[in-house]
């Protein structure tokens, strides 16, 4: 048997069910590797001794019918976990310990998994490089000094570096798919409404979605099965029939029509990205899919739209962090002074910037020109997809306009940072599902990802497409364990 920590989730589950491994074996292995990996700075909070105790307890009376029996797992620090500190990567929640559990993580524990700890992320999920976290940068396991992407940077690094067999992240404008692409892993953003948002620290309510981040498509499908559920505590949760995604997974995609949107071919796009895309098209054809040229005419308006809608919703969602009920509070001479100091000291620069943008675009005199306009353009973007889906079953694009960049490289240029999300953002605006799979390397040897966008609620379709292509691509992540002490 290969090293525990280099096994896939599917393999670990099989081994535990077949009693070839115990939960304690597996948990201790991941704890050990995590403890040696401090340099990655993937974790904000560790719960290692508890995890081992829970593993031992599981082994005493193992329920092997569960989908994640005794599997240790760390999760993004945006999910409220009962009695375990939850910070959202922010100072303002530095000592916040929820007395409740998010629905998505509860689903995971219900299937037998065990919490290892909480993973680092951009503050309040705002960022594309995990450089805005109050708890420091995260290193990309691919190479030292490289960003892992964001906002689910800690999550992507943990999966890629094998500190956890699998994890969950959240995706508002690409925060699962972009880091997956940067770290050579698989990331799925489900259809809006597929996973409950109850208990997830909210960033932009009409865009946020939780999703699995894994080493391969099959693992991803298994976790998606566990986390996706209808929740009546979330008014935007949708009650639709959910597949057994891992059971129904197939490589047979013959006859599926895959759209190639010309507008995704952006000016100045690196040659490597275009080549990767072409390779992807070839692989898809090899699998029996049919390639169709399509147009998504409003693509170039997606980023500006996103940077109105997301900050607007965030400015309102983050108003509750006022030092009154929980979290950090600064001393103030009066109530307003207290608010201003608390939020000024408690929030990092990027969060403050986005709150300001959001407040401005909603303010009197600007609402129509910005927010209302953005919601109209959002309709046009969604219409583009609806039209395209009359002709195709899925859409294939690159995940990111480049491979992982260096830590500090884009920090002072917000617009340059925002351009990271150019391919991923339209998907959130339209509420569609999309998966990023690693598909190649650039000249520096850094991973590049391809994105498959699906129809609403058709996660199975894109998982199948990804599964088929993953096989053809046969991607090998080059992890050298450079950070292990």
């Amino acid at each position: 048997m290969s090293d525990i920590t280099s096994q896939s989730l599917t393999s670990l589950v099989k081994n535990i069910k077949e009693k070839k491994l115990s939960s304690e074996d597996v948990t201790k292995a991941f704890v050990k590797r995590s403890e040696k990996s401090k340099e990655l700075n993937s974790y904000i909070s560790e719960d290692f001794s508890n995890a081992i105790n829970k593993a031992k307890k599981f082994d005493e009376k193992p329920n092997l019918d569960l989908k994640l029996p005794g599997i240790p797992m760390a999760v993004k620090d945006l999910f409220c976990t009962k009695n375990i500190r939850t910070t959202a990567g922010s100072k303002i929640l530095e000592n916040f310990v929820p007395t409740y559990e998010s629905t998505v993580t509860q689903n995971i524990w219900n299937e037998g998994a065990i919490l290892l700890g909480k993973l680092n992320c951009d503050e309040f999920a705002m960022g594309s490089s995990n450089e805005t976290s109050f708890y420091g940068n995260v290193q990309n396991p691919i190479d030292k000094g490289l960003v892992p992407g964001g906002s689910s940077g800690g999550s992507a690094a943990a999966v890629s570096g094998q500190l956890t067999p699998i994890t969950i992240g959240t995706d508002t404008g690409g925060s699962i798919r972009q880091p997956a692409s940067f770290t050579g892993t698989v990331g799925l953003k489900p259809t809006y409404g597929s996973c409950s948002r109850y208990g997830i620290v909210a960033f932009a309510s009409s865009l946020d979605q939780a999703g699995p981040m894994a080493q391969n498509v099959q693992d991803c499908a298994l976790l998606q099965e566990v986390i996706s559920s209808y929740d009546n505590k979330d008014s935007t949760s949708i009650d639709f029939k959910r597949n057994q995604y891992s059971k129904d997974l197939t490589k047979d995609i013959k006859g599926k029509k895959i759209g190639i949107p010309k507008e995704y071919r952006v000016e100045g796009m690196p040659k490597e990205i275009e080549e990767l895309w072409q390779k992807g098209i070839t692989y898809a054809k090899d699998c029996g899919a049919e390639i169709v040229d399509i147009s998504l005419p409003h693509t170039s308006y997606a980023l500006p739209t996103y940077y109105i809608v997301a900050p607007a919703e965030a400015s309102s969602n983050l108003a509750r962090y006022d030092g009154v009920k929980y979290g950090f509070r600064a001393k103030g001479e009066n109530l307003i002074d207290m608010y201003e100091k608390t939020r000024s000291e408690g929030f990092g620069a990027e969060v403050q910037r986005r709150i300001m943008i959001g407040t401005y675009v909603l303010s009197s005199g600007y609402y129509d020109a910005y927010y209302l306009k953005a919601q109209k353009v959002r309709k046009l973007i969604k219409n583009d997809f609806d039209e395209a889906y009359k002709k195709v079953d899925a859409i294939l694009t690159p995940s990111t306009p480049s491979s992982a960049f260096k830590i500090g490289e884009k920090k002072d240029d917000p617009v340059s940072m925002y351009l990271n999300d150019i391919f991923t953002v339209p998907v959130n605006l339209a509420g569609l599902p999309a998966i990023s799979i690693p598909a190649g390397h650039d000249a520096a040897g850094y991973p590049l990802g391809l994105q498959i966008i699906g129809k609403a609620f058709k996660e199975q379709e894109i998982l199948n497409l990804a599964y088929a292509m993953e096989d053809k691509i046969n991607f090998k992540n080059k992890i050298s364990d450079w950070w292990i002490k």
Partner: protein
Amino acid sequence: MSINLKTIKHISKLSRISVDEQKAEKLAGDLNAIFKFIEKLNELNTDKVEPLTSVAETTLKFRSDEVKNQNIRDQIIKNSPEDNEDFFVVPKVVE
């Protein structure tokens, strides 16, 4: 559409985040760059377009009028920064 210091101060008041001169200037610079980028939307004529209300294709689901939550005051107040078991405590408002 230029964002000046006065606007920054106004927004910071609305969003209850304090800014000093230096911070305000930086913010004005950042926001101006961002808004230049956002201005692209003006290329589109959206007069006849309905705004998107939600991508969730469903109607608002009802909840029944049952009282479900018991007294969880200790949970609610335990995270608050001040040491009062019954109330949240904040500095006075200056009216």
